[in-house]
C-alpha cells in the first residue's frame, strides 16, 4: 500500500466527470488508485444503498456500482459481494425479481445479497447495546460504502453514516421505535437522539475502508423516495475517502450545508472519528469552493406539505412520527390526487396535544401521541339533532307552543375519525387503514398502489394489514 495514503485516513477526494463511471474512477485514482484499498485475493463487501424495490435514485446508481466492481476485480479481489438490509416490511425474496439486480451483478463477477432475518450474524456489544451484524460483513477483508446522496427529511441529505445503518439487523433499527410516553421524550426528541446513538454505534462495530458519496445525480426538493415535485439534479460530483465522517462533512460542504448544524455529523464529532473541524480533513481533487452548489432541501414542517383538501394540524411530535407522516403525506399528494379530490375535506392531527380541527369530519389522528392526548377532545364528540322515527304532523299538534319548540340535541361519538396508531405509525398500515376508512370507491388510486405494494411486502405485514 502507498505509505502516503495509509497514514492519511482523513484524505478526501472530490471527483468530477462526464458520467458516473468516470467520476468514481477519478475519485479513487485521486486517492492513489484502488490498489491502495485492496490487496490481491481479498474479499470485498460493498454496502450499497438499497431500501425498497424502486429504481434509481431511490437506490444506488448501477453505473457507479459497475465501475466499482470492475475496479475491485482489476485490483485482484477474490470475491466482491454487494448487499444490504432492505426496509423491514419488504419481502427480500421478491427483491431480485422486482429489480433483476442479481443476474446483472453476477454478470460483473460479483455476488448480490439482500439480507433477511435468517442470515448468519455475530453479536457485538457497543455501549451496552447488543448489535447483530451479518457474518458476511464482519468477516470480509474490506468494507466499502456506496451511498446514493438524496435529500432526507431528517438529516438534510442521505449521509453515508445513515447508509451504514442498514448493514445491521432490523432489531436495532426498531429499537428506537415504540417510544416512551412523557414530556421529556418529546421535548428532547429522544427518538432522534436514540437514532443517532444507534447509528454511530453501528459504525463502531465495522469501520468502512472506502466510502463513496455518489451525487452525480441527486434527488432534491422531495426525497428520499420519488414523490411529486422531486427533481433529479445532475451535479456530476462524488466524494470519496476512507473516513466516513470526513466524506460526509465534505459532501455537506459541497452542498452548502453546515456540518455543525447537521444533527448527525455534529454528534459524530464527539465519537472516535478523529475529525472535529474542516481543517482536520485533507482535500484533494476538485476545489470545494469552486464546486459548491445549492440544492432544494425537503420541507421541515409538515404543515408546508401542500396536500389538497387536507388541514394538517400539529402538536408536539418526535422525529419518528415526522418521518413517517412526511412519507405518508407526500405519498397522498403524489399517488392519490384523485382520491383526495373525492375526500373533499379532512384534518390530519399529529403529535401531542394537537389543536382542535376546524371540522369534525374525517379527522385522521396520526400516531400514539396524538391518539392518547386527544381522548377527551371536542372533536371526538358530536352534537346532533335528535331524529324521531315518526313526527307528528303539525295540524294534529294541539299546543301552539309546540311549533316554537326547539329540536332536541343529542351528543354522540364522532365516528368520522380514523386513528393510525403506532410510535411511529407504519406507512403501509396507515395506507391500508386509510383506504378501509374511505372505501375503495373513494380511493381508486390508493387501492391500486396498495395492491402493488402487496406484491412485495412480507407475509406478516400483509396479515397485519388485513386485520
Amino acid at each position, binding site marked *: 500500500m502507498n505509505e502516503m495514503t495509509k497514514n492519511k485516513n482523513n484524505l478526501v477526494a472530490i471527483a468530477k466527470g462526464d458520467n458516473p463511471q468516470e467520476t468514481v474512477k477519478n475519485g479513487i485514482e485521486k486517492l492513489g488508485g484502488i490498489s491502495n484499498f485492496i490487496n490481491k485475493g481479498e474479499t470485498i463487501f460493498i454496502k450499497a444503498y438499497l431500501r425498497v424495490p424502486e429504481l434509481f435514485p431511490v437506490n444506488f446508481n448501477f453505473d457507479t456500482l459497475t465501475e466499482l466492481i470492475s475496479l475491485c476485480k482489476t485490483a485482484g479481489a477474490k470475491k466482491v459481494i454487494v448487499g444490504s438490509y432492505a426496509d423491514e416490511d419488504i419481502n427480500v425474496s421478491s427483491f431480485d425479481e422486482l429489480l*433483476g439486480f442479481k443476474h446483472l451483478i453476477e454478470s460483473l463477477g460479483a455476488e448480490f445479497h439482500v439480507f433477511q432475518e435468517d442470515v448468519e450474524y455475530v453479536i457485538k456489544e457497543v455501549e451496552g447495546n447488543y448489535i447483530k451484524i451479518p457474518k458476511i460483513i464482519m468477516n470480509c477483508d474490506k468494507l466499502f460504502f456506496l451511498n446514493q446522496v438524496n435529500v432526507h427529511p431528517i438529516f438534510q441529505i442521505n449521509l453515508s453514516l445513515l447508509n451504514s445503518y442498514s448493514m445491521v439487523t432490523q432489531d436495532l433499527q426498531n429499537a428506537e421505535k415504540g417510544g416512551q410516553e412523557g414530556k421529556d421524550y418529546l421535548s428532547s426528541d429522544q427518538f432522534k437522539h436514540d437514532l443517532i446513538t444507534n447509528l454511530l454505534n453501528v459504525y463502531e462495530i465495522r469501520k468502512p475502508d472506502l466510502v463513496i458519496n455518489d451525487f452525480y*445525480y441527486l434527488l432534491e426538493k422531495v426525497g428520499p423516495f420519488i414523490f411529486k415535485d422531486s427533481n433529479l439534479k445532475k451535479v456530476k460530483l462524488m466524494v470519496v475517502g476512507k473516513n466516513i465522517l470526513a466524506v460526509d462533512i465534505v459532501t455537506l460542504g459541497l452542498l452548502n450545508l453546515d456540518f455543525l448544524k447537521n444533527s448527525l455529523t455534529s454528534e459524530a464529532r464527539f465519537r472516535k472519528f478523529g475529525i472535529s473541524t474542516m481543517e482536520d480533513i485533507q482535500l484533494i481533487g476538485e476545489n470545494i469552493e469552486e464546486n459548491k452548489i445549492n440544492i432544494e432541501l425537503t420541507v421541515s414542517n409538515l404543515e408546508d406539505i401542500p396536500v389538497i383538501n387536507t388541514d394538517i394540524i400539529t402538536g408536539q411530535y418526535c422525529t419518528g412520527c415526522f418521518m413517517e407522516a412526511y412519507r405518508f403525506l407526500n405519498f397522498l399528494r403524489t399517488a392519490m390526487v384523485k382520491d383526495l379530490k373525492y375526500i373533499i375535506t379532512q384534518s390530519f392531527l399529529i403529535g401531542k396535544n394537537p389543536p382542535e380541527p376546524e371540522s369534525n369530519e374525517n379527522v385522521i389522528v396520526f400516531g400514539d401521541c396524538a391518539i392518547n392526548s386527544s381522548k377527551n377532545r371536542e372533536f371526538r364528540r358530536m352534537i346532533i339533532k335528535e331524529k324521531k322515527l315518526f313526527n307528528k304532523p303539525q295540524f294534529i299538534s294541539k299546543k301552539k307552543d309546540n311549533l316554537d319548540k326547539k329540536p332536541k340535541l343529542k351528543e354522540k361519538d364522532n365516528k368520522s375519525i380514523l386513528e393510525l396508531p403506532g410510535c411511529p405509525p407504519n406507512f403501509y398500515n396507515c395506507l391500508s387503514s386509510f383506504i378501509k376508512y374511505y372505501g375503495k370507491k373513494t380511493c381508486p388510486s390508493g387501492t391500486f398502489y396498495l395492491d402493488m405494494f402487496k406484491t412485495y411486502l412480507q407475509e406478516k405485514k400483509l396479515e397485519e394489514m388485513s386485520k
Partner: protein
Amino acid sequence: MINKDLSRNWQKFLSFSSKVDNLDNPLEVEDKITIPLTSFETNAYLLYYLFEEISPKFINDQLNVIDIIISDYELENIVLGAFIYQMNKPGIHENIKELKKDELKLKFKDLNNNELLLNQIQKSVFKNHGIKITNFRIIKKRGLDLINRHMEDLDKLTLLGVIESFLDLIQILVKKDLLLFYPNPPVINFLKQAFNILKNLKLSKIVRYLIEVLPLSDFGIILKTKVSPILFNMNKNSQNIKHDDPNLSVNWIKIHESEDLDLDKIRAELKLKYIINLQLDILLNFLMDIIESSFPISQEKVKLISQKFLFGVRSYQNYWNISPKPLIYNGFIRFLLRIVGFNLNLQKLSHWAIPEFFFSIFNSYGGMQGNILLLLTDHENKTSPRYNLLVVQMENGFINSIEIPQSVELNLKIDNSFEELRVNASKEYGTISLIIKIDKKLIQFLLVSLIVNFYKLNIFKLLKMVKLLKNPIYFEIYPKIPFYRLIKRKKSYDLLKNLLSISIDKHEF
C-alpha cells in the same frame, strides 16, 4: 435549379393567391393545386385558406420574406439565387421577384450572426426594391437537390411512400441544417429538438409502423373552419389502386350557412366506415401547445399537454363528433354496465388525474434516470425479422434520446433471455433499468379499438385489451416491477374495474 413541377405549381399558387381578394365567392373556385412537396391535388382556395390559418401560427406572422439558395461550399459569393415575396397577409405568398445575380453577396461567415445578416439583407433589398424584408429562409444547394430528388420520385410512390419520403426530407433538411430560418419559427425549433432526440431513428419509420398496424382506409376527418368544413377523405374506392394504398382527397364540404353538418349523411354518401368531426381552431391551438414546449420538456408540461388531450377526448359533441355514434355513449348500455360494476362514461374521463397517476407509477418503478430497452415484436410474422429494438434514454423522468442499436452482436442476442439481453445492452449503453416488450398485435388491437373501431368500443374489447396485457407473448416487462406483477396477478375483471375507476370520475353530475 428548382424542380420544374414544383416551380410551375408554386407559380400557379402564387398567381391564384394574388387574385383571391378580388373573388366574390372563393369557395366556388374549382382550380386545383398540388399540395407543395406532395402529389396530392386539392382545391386552390382550400390550400390558400390552410396557409392563411397555419403559417402565421407555426411559421411566421411577419410580412415579406426572402428565400436564398446558397452553395454548399465557400465561394466568392455563396448566393446562387434569391427570391423576394411581397405579402399582404402573413403566410400568403403572392408576388415573387428574383434578385439579379450578385445583387446579394454573402460568405459563410455571414451566417454566424443571423440578426446582422437580416439587417444587411433588409438594407440591400430596401435600397434596390423598396421592400422591407422581415425574415429570411436560406436553403443550401444540397437541400435543394434533396427536394428535387424527392419531387422526381413522387410519381413512382404510393400514398405511404409519399408520406415517408416527405418526412425523410424534412428530417434531413432540419437535422443537417440545410434549411435555415430567421427568426426561427416555433415549428422548426420544435422539429430540430425532436429530431435530436430521435438520434438515428427516422420519423418515417415510426409513421410506417403506425400505418401498418392501422388500417387507414374508408374514413374521413372533417375540420370545421370559419369558412366551410374541410373533408379529409381516405378511401379505397378507386379500382386502380392497390389494396394497401388508399386514396387521399382533401376538399371543401359545401353546405349552406344555416344547415347543420349531417355526419351520417356524408358518411353514407361517401361510403365511409366512420367519420370524425373536429374544430380546426382547437386542433391548431393544441398543436401550438406542443410545439411551443422548450426541450427537454418537463414532466409537468407533458402532464399538462396530456390533460388537454384527455379533456378534448371527453368533450364529445362539444369539441368533436363521430358517426356512427359509438356504442359507449349509449346511456342504457352505460346504465347496464354500471349495474355490473363498470363505470364507463367517457364524457367523465378524469383528464386531470390520469397523467398524474401514471407518471407517479412510472417515476417510482421506471426510475428517474436510466435506459429502457423497448423490444417491439411481431409474434405472428413468420417471415420477416420479428424484432425491433429501441434504446430509450431517460433523464429526470424525461426522454433524452431514442436510438436504434447498431450493434450486430446485440441484435443477434435478442433471442436470448431478458437477463442476457439486459447484460449485453448494459455493456453498450450503460445500465438498462427496464426491458419492455410489446407485440405488434397488442399495439394494433389498442389502436384499432381506440381509433379505427372506436364507434364499436365496448366493455368486452376493453377486457380483451387487459387480457392481452397480461399475456407475456404480447406484453412483458423485465424485471417484473410491482406494476407488472400486479397486472399479472390481478384478475382481468378486477383490474379493468380498478383502472376504470381511476380513469373515470365516479360522479355523473
